């Protein structure tokens, strides 16, 4: 069957019936959520266990079960690999992984898939694991990719049941209260799996800094926690700010950041109380910096900036240019430090940030957002999951949630990646539908979604270089010979869920790739 975007979706994916995507806000619910797993405890419960292995035994983790993790240490995480290595040693098989995101440090999961320890993944797919899965025949069911908000919703709705959640906690007490902003190796907010802790059959807090009761702020609460394990190392904060988080010196990218800033300034949203979110890419970081300078010049104070928290955002807060930062995860150590020092740097969980099945998301309060993409198409659809070679290389992150939420969603992209054009007739994979994308900023011009004539008029009046996507595409295509399409097999290796749980697209096996 075809969904509302004309993408071919099978009736079933793995063991689940699919609901085709029917529109960004087409499936608002008003009913009862799945019930949580409930479990009582005697008043003198001792939750401390000596090791991860002991916790795995205590929870009764066995073949075929589902385990979950947060990604607050990003590329510095040490918990996922430790837990999986123990699982492998204990001979566990067919586990289903439900991480909130994976990073290059987790490339060892490929070996666990090969050896059968892991057979299913729901969550993010990054480079090596995604490329491996794209070969087909690796997982027993297709992977399910969800946005941050979509994952929270799926857990609450009972779409995915969790047996054990392992929560890396920079500081915890023996009764299970835990925080990410204190301890020997603080990493920022750790509430990404707070929903897992409330819905899983078992919750294990893994900490490297056991502190006297009560540890606060209580991002993870004692009432959700079965066991507390102390280990030497849960993560290396130095690797939080790796990967995408680099200030760019590329003239093209800086130009795009400048054009993005100019567009925001002339959008009509740039008034007192203005709010925005940028991603972690070089263009976004530069745009955040430029935007701060424009706010200072114009004497505008923003209501809030939304994280991933970065040094750029913290600087705006310290300069008095925004009243608050709403932050679900730290992207660098400046943000981690600010979380414990700045009262206006507020931690929020993904439920508040972006849960579709809720009575309001923080992303809905955004005026402007600037986000990246691997591809866009003439219908303004955005791909962040696959590359033009068809390989599944990235998770969704908050892309869908922010795009659907912000009043003005801007995709900021250079028109070429090497010799591969980024503007396509039709994206390889739809992550975010054109319906929720307002502006695409490239170094060769600013394209405005036809449904936003109001924005187009403002940009034109301000003398900004407004062009159609087709015009920009034509100019770029003239610089490189056409790129061949990858050959896809029949097998579906992953499904992309829209944030409401419907299926917006599927990713198929890439033939001839090893």
């Amino acid at each position: 069957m075809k969904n509302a975007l004309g993408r071919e979706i099978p009736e079933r994916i793995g063991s689940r019936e699919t609901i085709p995507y029917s529109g960004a806000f087409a499936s608002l619910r008003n009913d009862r959520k799945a019930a949580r797993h409930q479990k009582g405890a005697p008043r003198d419960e001792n939750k401390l266990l000596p090791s991860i292995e002991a916790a795995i035994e205590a929870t009764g983790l066995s073949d075929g079960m589902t385990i979950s993790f947060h990604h607050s240490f990003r590329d510095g995480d040490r918990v996922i690999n430790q837990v999986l290595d123990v699982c492998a040693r204990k001979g566990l098989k067919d586990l289903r992984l439900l991480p909130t995101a994976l990073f290059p440090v987790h490339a060892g999961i490929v070996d666990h898939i090969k050896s059968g320890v892991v057979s299913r993944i729901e969550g993010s797919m990054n480079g090596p694991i995604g490329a491996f899965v794209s070969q087909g025949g690796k997982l027993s069911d297709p992977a399910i990719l969800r946005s941050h908000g979509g994952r929270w919703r799926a857990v609450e709705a009972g779409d995915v049941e969790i047996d054990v959640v392992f929560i890396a906690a920079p500081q915890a007490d023996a009764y299970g209260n835990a925080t990410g902003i204190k301890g020997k190796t603080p990493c920022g907010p750790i509430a990404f799996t707070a929903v897992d802790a409330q819905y899983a059959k078992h919750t294990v807090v893994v900490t490297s800094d056991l502190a006297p009761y009560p540890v606060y702020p209580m991002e993870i609460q004692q009432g959700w926690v079965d066991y507390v394990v102390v280990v030497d190392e849960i993560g290396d904060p130095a690797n939080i700010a790796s990967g995408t988080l680099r200030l760019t010196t590329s003239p093209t990218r800086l130009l795009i950041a400048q054009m993005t800033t100019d567009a925001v300034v002339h959008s009509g949203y740039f008034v007192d109380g203005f709010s925005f979110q940028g991603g972690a890419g070089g263009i976004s970081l530069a745009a955040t910096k430029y935007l701060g300078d424009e706010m200072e010049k114009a004497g505008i104070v923003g209501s809030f900036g939304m994280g991933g928290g970065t040094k750029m955002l913290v600087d705006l807060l310290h300069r008095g240019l925004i009243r608050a930062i709403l932050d679900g995860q730290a992207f660098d150590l400046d943000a981690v430090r600010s979380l414990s020092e700045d009262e206006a740097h507020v931690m929020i969980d993904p439920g508040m940030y972006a849960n579709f099945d809720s009575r309001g998301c923080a992303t809905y309060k955004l005026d402007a957002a600037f986000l990246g993409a691997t591809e866009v198409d003439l219908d303004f659809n955005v791909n962040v999951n696959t590359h033009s070679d068809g390989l599944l290389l990235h998770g969704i992150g908050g892309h869908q949630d922010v795009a659907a939420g912000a009043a003005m969603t801007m995709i900021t992209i250079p028109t070429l990646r090497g010799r591969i054009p980024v503007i396509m007739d039709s994206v390889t994979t739809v992550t975010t539908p054109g319906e929720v994308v307002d502006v695409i900023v490239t170094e060769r011009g600013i394209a405005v979604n036809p449904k936003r004539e109001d924005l187009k008029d403002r940009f034109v009046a301000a003398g900004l270089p407004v062009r159609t996507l087709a015009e920009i595409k034509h100019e770029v295509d003239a610089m490189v010979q056409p790129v061949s399409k990858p050959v896809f097999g029949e097998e579906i290796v992953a499904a992309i869920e829209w944030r409401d749980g419907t299926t917006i697209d599927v990713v198929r096996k890439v033939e001839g790739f090893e």
Partner: protein
Amino acid sequence: MAMGGVAGSDAKGDCLVSVESADALQIDIRTKAEALVAPGIQMVVERTLEQLGSPKLTVSVQDFGSLDYVVSARTETAVRKALSLAAVDPNTVVEREATAVDRPRRSRLYAPGNNPRLLAGIDVHGADCVLLDLEDSVPLSEKTSAQILVKHLLAAIAFPQDVWVRINEQDAGGEADVREVLRGRPHGLCLPKAESADDVIRLSKFLDEVEAAYGIEPGFTKIMPIIETARGVLRCEDIATADPRIVMVAFGAEDYTRDVGAIRSRPSLLFARSMIVAAATVAGIQASDTVFADLSDTEGLMKETALARELGFDGKGAINPRQLVPIHEAFSPTENELAYAAQVVEAAEAAERAGSGAVALDGKMIDKPVLERAKRLLKYGAQLAQGGM
């Protein structure tokens, strides 16, 4: 005897092409996402070889994200090295409209002529003039590669602004530069270290020849002498008035300070700057100030640009696109200036209608030079507005 040639590099945006003589044509391409992009690269290599007379060669290309024009340039360079071909037939002169003598040239943005990464997108930053450099930024061993790369870039991109090439001094490879890049029909050439009228006239005569040979209309190619020595400064009136191809003279402070043994400062450059502005005025052409080399010092750039405008310059060099905004701001007429100019012209027209000889505005007499300047300013403002700059 087997012959070989290598061109390009493994830098981002470039490709490394090596060729060897063989019994039959064979092309080998290595790149990321090979299945997707190798067929396109192969097409470009084949097309380029055809233009070079389809020599029998083994060609191997290692691609690092190069655009088509880079692939053709590197292929041509490698083949010409292997076969010791001095040049190819000038059968591919591109189309381009001549530049207007008096169009705004607030900025001339330099880009090193043999660096595909820094050349990529050089057309999109809104510089009034893009200046592709074959001189100081290109090592001696890369001069031919750079000529060929710039030629292919000129052919590939429809620049929305002036596109110029800074050639080497005429006796130091400048003529080879001209022969190569004129096939890409740049709007003009920058002549470094111009020291006399003869330097310019000699280049102009050489351009007459090459334009005729390539079927380019005579006089299409403009000249921008760069004054960057003591001798050049003292003779800059002769230089600026030497040839009708000249539309702008530029100042090069780095070489000038070295030449006279000065330390770069406002006072040490003042004499040269004022000489150049005066010479340009006498010649009825534009003057462009030297580049500001410290990319991180925006405030310094703004100060120096404001000074350049004060002194009467029409524009300034830029070493990075980030410098364009402050430069453009400084050299664009303000709204007040434009409004006043409009009032001046209006008052003059009203006086003419009334048959009155004297023109006055707000009780002040408007003489002819003031009126002329107001008209020029309005035209300039209109040109800027039209260019979307």
